[in-house]
């Protein structure tokens, strides 16, 4: 397959998925609303003292962002499975890999990226020290993309099941742990005045690894889910 043809395929899938989720609205807005609401619950649960919140903010923001991304992931292939457009993706001589890559990327663009961009505001609400803001955003940008790829594997495995939602979190959450560790640690390191680039570099490594290998698992999982 020639390069421009591959690129055309990727662009077509990206365009279609982004347009579809922007038109539906809830797909990109619900995770954001969830992110804001759950972050607002924490001061109510642990008290309003700014220093205490500031101490916990990196962890809270990262865990809640992770959960928001997880919730959004369930719908990644479900719509296509229900309206049988997923069958069309499988029934073409063009390879599935770039299609899956484009779909996951589109999903990240409408869920993970807005989450990352919104995070500084929630950092303010939780009294996150100013030095942590930029690392928080950067680590979320890198981290949520990895989360999207890992989550897509789980979404592809559970898309054919009637009760996929909770099951998806069971199988995906343990795999999220390394991302959480390095993401929140980058923010903490920045607040303490230490170097946070190593952690970001690690997230970058995870991203490259996920970019290369996750679509393989996703393709296999999709074929299994359709073949029932």
């Amino acid at each position, binding site marked *: 397959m020639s390069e421009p043809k591959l690129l055309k395929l990727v662009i077509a899938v990206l365009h279609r998925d982004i347009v579809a989720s922007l038109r539906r609205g809830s797909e990109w807005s619900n995770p954001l609303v969830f992110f804001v609401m759950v972050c607002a619950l924490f001061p109510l649960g642990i008290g309003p003292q700014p220093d205490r919140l500031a101490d916990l903010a990196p962890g809270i923001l990262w865990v809640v962002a992770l959960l928001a991304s997880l919730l959004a992931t369930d719908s990644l292939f479900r719509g296509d499975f229900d309206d049988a457009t997923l069958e069309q993706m499988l029934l073409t001589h063009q390879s599935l890999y770039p299609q899956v890559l484009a779909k996951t990327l589109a999903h990240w663009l409408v869920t993970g990226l807005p989450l990352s961009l919104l995070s500084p505001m929630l950092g303010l609400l939780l009294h996150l020290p100013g030095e942590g803001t930029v690392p928080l955003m950067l680590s979320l940008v890198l981290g949520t993309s990895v989360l999207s790829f890992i989550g897509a594997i789980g979404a592809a495995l559970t898309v*054919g*099941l009637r009760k996929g939602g909770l*099951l998806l979190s069971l*199988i995906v959450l343990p795999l999220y*742990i390394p991302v959480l*560790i390095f993401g929140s640690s980058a923010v903490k390191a920045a607040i303490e005045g230490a170097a946070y680039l190593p952690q970001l570099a690690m997230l970058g490594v995870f991203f490259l690894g996920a970019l290369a290998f996750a679509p393989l*698992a996703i393709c296999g*999982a999709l074929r*299994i889910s359709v073949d*029932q």
Partner: protein
Amino acid sequence: MSISSTFHKWGSPRWFYQFSGRLLPWLAILSLLLLVGGAVWGLAFVPADYKQGNSFRIMYIHVPAAAVAMGAYMTMATAGAIHLIWRMKLAAMVMKAIAPIGASLTFLSLLTGAVWGKPTWGTWWVWDARITSVLILFFLYLGVIALHQAFENRDAAAKACAVLAIVGAVNIPIIYWSVEWWYSLHQPASISFTGESTIHPSMLRPLMATLCGMYLFFGWLLLLYTRIEILEREKNTRWVQDLICGESR
């Protein structure tokens, strides 16, 4: 190629069933001997640890359970890969058989770890790198079991679990290494105790016995569960029906 080649291998579960039948008694006797012998040795004959006193004796069950649980996950992922690549039905059965055994051993390792922690560290649970890793391994097992139960179609369940187990196995080194790194960041000086530094060579020998015993016991259970899977899946074949009901009918 998919089904036709698997039909060629119909003989393979049958062969496995007959072969494993001869292995079962030896595995059972040897594993129980090693487990019970090692436990008695470790409980009653090894001198107490000068630092921990007698609580270290839990190690003789905790360490083998953790080690075998880890090995079991890798075996499960390998079986999954074999099932996906060569479409071997037997591998799917082995994979399904491992999940509950591995999860039980992981649970055992967590429980004994917690009980060991109470007299040693004065608390039931410590977010120590090793225990946290075992906890994550437990979650991974639960995920595989939950996914398997959610499918109605057995073949799809096996394939989906194979993919998940492989993804998990690829991630385990990354997860373990991340958790190690995370722990090294937060490690308070007071809990810098590690098991190995205080182990005296004489304490290691019973551990070897229970470790080998646990591996063999796992092998025994694996054969038992796989044989049941074979019976359930091949229930419509002549050889299974002859085997259960006698050839005279």
